[in-house]
């Protein structure tokens, strides 16, 4: 007996009519295609159906110790950045026409999604100073991995990849996983004072290197000298790939394109996308126009309709899996459209001046925080010589993890203890300060250092 449910419009009377039209007496008659030896006759173990009220109640109970319920204060960044988001962004992305539509394969029914993607591509390319952006990728880490795959296609005869040791450790793990079966040799460029060592890069880069990957601002928050690193990479014919997890920094730092990037990727979470315990976010992927045919993912292009009116459609799909199958530039199909829309609306609302001002606020608060933390006498800047954007490393006298746990018990996440990524790094704390932290919040963190570190 099929149960009735609020998601299922078919009533028992409808069901009888539909079955009759199908020439069947029962649902069972329609299941004859499933051989008896592979039929499942039990009940799935997901429990009884629950009402909205019950589900809401359960969620509230489950989340009672979460950061929201605690009204906690956090200085955690490390690839996910807590930025302000105007209310209208959430409201607009709830519109069913955006939320419940499919990939715009039928352009005549998808012009809203398509124009938004065109605006997204325009803004992303503009921010990175690159000629072309795709219509989004899964996230910053997979964008970077696909950039390496693209470099393999562009530099077919080369087998080595150089990666800076300042790239986010989880991005590096993803890169390694993607390349594991493809015969690529990855080497790491060491750091000097928290940034990629230019001299080491110069000695490591050879004609065999397909690409050099640099992150800026890097995992430790330090701004890399992209221009010099690019020149060193290009001197040996390597492609220069930049990864930018904190894309708000592009408001004030020279764009990857201006510094000579061939491919520039990043994470669009910074554009007001909720942290959501790590996803969904939106991968950004840009390159020079000459490489567009090797780009992974969807591209939206401007064209006209039968009446000559400005219109948009997905284009260059001969690169993609549904046409080229095993010869495609990537296997990517569904990606992150709604989050790309979120980022587009956010960038539109924040606007040209607001985007710059927001970055200045991050920079100002971060500089204030550096001084406030150092003034406690309990913390030292690890890379005092380097410039940063909204994140920096301090060394504590004792264990950073101990301090993290003690502060957490007081409702404050003071940053990320770097021992999480490198067991030998016991004293490092990576602190992130965005516009959402008030002066008082920063002073609270300093006070905790005084008391607990």
């Amino acid at each position, binding site marked *: 007996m099929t149960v009735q449910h609020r998601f299922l419009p078919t009533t028992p009377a409808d069901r009888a009519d539909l079955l009759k039209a199908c020439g069947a007496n029962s649902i069972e008659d329609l299941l004859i295609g499933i051989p008896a030896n592979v039929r499942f006759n039990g009940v799935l173990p997901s429990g009884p159906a629950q009402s909205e009220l019950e589900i809401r109640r359960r969620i509230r109970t489950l989340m009672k110790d979460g950061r929201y319920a605690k009204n906690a204060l956090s200085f955690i960044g490390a690839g996910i950045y807590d930025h302000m988001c105007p209310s209208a962004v959430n409201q607009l992305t709830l519109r*069913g026409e955006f939320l419940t539509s499919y990939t715009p394969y039928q352009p005549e029914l998808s*012009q*809203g999604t398509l124009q938004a993607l065109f605006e997204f591509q325009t803004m992303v390319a503009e921010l990175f100073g690159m000629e072309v952006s795709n219509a989004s990728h899964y996230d910053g880490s997979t964008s970077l991995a696909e950039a390496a795959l693209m470099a393999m296609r562009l530099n077919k005869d080369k087998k080595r990849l150089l990666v800076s040791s300042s790239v986010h450790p989880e991005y590096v793990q993803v890169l390694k996983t993607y390349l594991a079966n493809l015969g690529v040799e990855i080497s790491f460029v060491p750091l000097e004072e928290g940034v990629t060592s230019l001299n080491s890069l110069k000695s490591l880069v050879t004609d065999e290197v397909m690409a050099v990957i640099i992150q800026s601002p890097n995992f430790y928050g330090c701004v890399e000298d992209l221009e010099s690193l690019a020149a060193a990479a290009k001197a040996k014919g390597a492609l220069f790939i930049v990864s930018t997890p904190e894309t708000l920094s592009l408001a004030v730092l020279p764009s990857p394109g201006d510094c000579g990037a061939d491919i520039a990727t990043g994470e669009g979470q910074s554009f007001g996308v909720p942290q959501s315990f*790590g996803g969904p976010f939106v991968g950004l992927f840009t390159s020079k126009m000459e490489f567009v045919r090797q780009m992974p993912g969807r591209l939206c292009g401007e064209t006209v309709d*039968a009446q000559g009116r400005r219109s948009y459609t997905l284009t260059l799909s001969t690169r993609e899996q549904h046409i080229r199958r095993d010869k495609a530039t990537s296997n990517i199909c569904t990606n992150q459209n709604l989050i790309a829309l979120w980022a587009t*609306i956010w960038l539109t609302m924040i606007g040209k001046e607001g985007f710059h001002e927001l*970055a200045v606020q991050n*920079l100002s608060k971060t500089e204030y925080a550096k001084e406030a933390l150092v003034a406690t006498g309990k913390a030292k800047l690890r890379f005092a010589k380097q410039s940063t954007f909204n994140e920096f490393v301090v060394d504590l006298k004792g264990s950073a993890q101990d301090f993290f746990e003690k502060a957490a018990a007081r409702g404050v996440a003071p940053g990320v203890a770097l021992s999480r990524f490198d067991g030998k790094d016991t004293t490092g704390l990576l602190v992130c300060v965005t516009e959402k932290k008030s002066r008082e919040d920063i002073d609270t963190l300093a006070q905790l250092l005084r008391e607990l570190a």
Partner: protein
Amino acid sequence: MDFLKKSTGHAVVLEEPPSFENSRPGAVGTDLPSLDVPRIDPQKIYKKTRSKKARLPELSEPEVMRHFTRMSTWNYAIDLGIYPLGSCTMKYNPRLNEEIARSGELSEAHPYDPIAWSQGHLRVMWELTEDLKGVTGMPGVSLQPAAGAHGELTGLMLVAAYHKAKGRQRKTILTADTAHGTNPASAALAGFQIVQIATGEDGVIHPEALAAVLNDDIAALMTTNPNTLGIFEKNIQTIADMLHERDALLYIDGANLNAVLGLSRPGDFGADVIQFNLHKTFSTPHGGGGPGSGPIAVSERLVPFLPIPRLEKKGEQIVLVDDTPQSIGRVKAFYGNYGMFIRAWCYIRALGGEGLRAVSENAILNANYMRSQLKDVLNLPINAPTLHEVVFNDRNQRETNLDTTKIAKRLIDYGMHPMTVHFPLCVKSAIMIEPTETESRSEMDRFVNAVKEILSTPNVEQAPTRVFRERVDETKAARELRLTYRFKD
């Protein structure tokens, strides 16, 4: 043309240029918090700063609201009507799931938060993992992959790791001619070559066809079940046994899992890996093309190779561990598309075990109803039992000037989204219809009547004409690439 007269055709749909054209210096779309610390000039900090401010638009809040609202009215959506895209599974997206996933309690958490703060989120992930094990009858699950194709890639990396651990390199993945394009593309990306098996006249893979290509270089067979013809692979048990005899693996593409919830479990016939498309089976919104979420379930054979990090119970606490030496590694930063897990978790709770089965039963009933109503006017190339979707083609229309594409584009003028066309590739000019379980009889009849009217009035001008934009010139788009707005300055 009675049908067309009944639809209004004149909704208030307004033109709206790209935001850059409405931009005016001085317009402000949002207020920033006041700066309560000394202002720092970037030029004092950096050796070099950005040369020119990014040309983002300048618009007020009401203008932004109208800009995107106007654009939204140019889209078709499941909220508006039937969206019978075969294999894409466009079903209703319950709104409670949006409310919960977007609430501060869930959306503000950071994956590096103290473990005690994260227990609720990890519990949601744990329970979803158990749900997925239950649905598949398979012992291992990873929620990491970001979308179905990403799940495929991850699954195939596990296959590669399995053979590597046995000290051999197997280079070939078998796929069926009913496969989605992502299957061969994912296999290539995982370093494999592809050999395609033709399905029989009854639309399924036959053991003889498999025997003809099965050798010790075959790493796995990858097939969708039910396949993209909406047909259950009736020989699947034999196929699984044949593969396992050679120590080759069975990959089930779970794109159509929505057809068999509570009716058949891949683990019971020996599947080694399956990816879920949470946005299909478990109704997380498609969002105009993502975000998806593509968890995988695996057999005992593949458990040691699952991606890191993994969920584990340590006493009362749930923790994430990455100390599994045989793991393929990490496939995505952080823990997967968590926001999608919540939505799927809510969906599964709202339905319960029996409700999930009712989902598949109603999906099958609706697809069979579509078949019964259209089989006299459209050609049904393969006459096998239909599950959640039915595939026709345009053979009956060859004498007229109609074809699959024209029927699809004409449907747009009738106020509904067309079905999937020209897929699967094994059926020439395929017309693939998947109504899903959330369509009512009257909505299905609206579609059926429109198709019938189109087929009986073949002499029509180029469709669509009753839309915001008529037929879009895709050739021009590819030839004269314009991928970004051309600023005047």
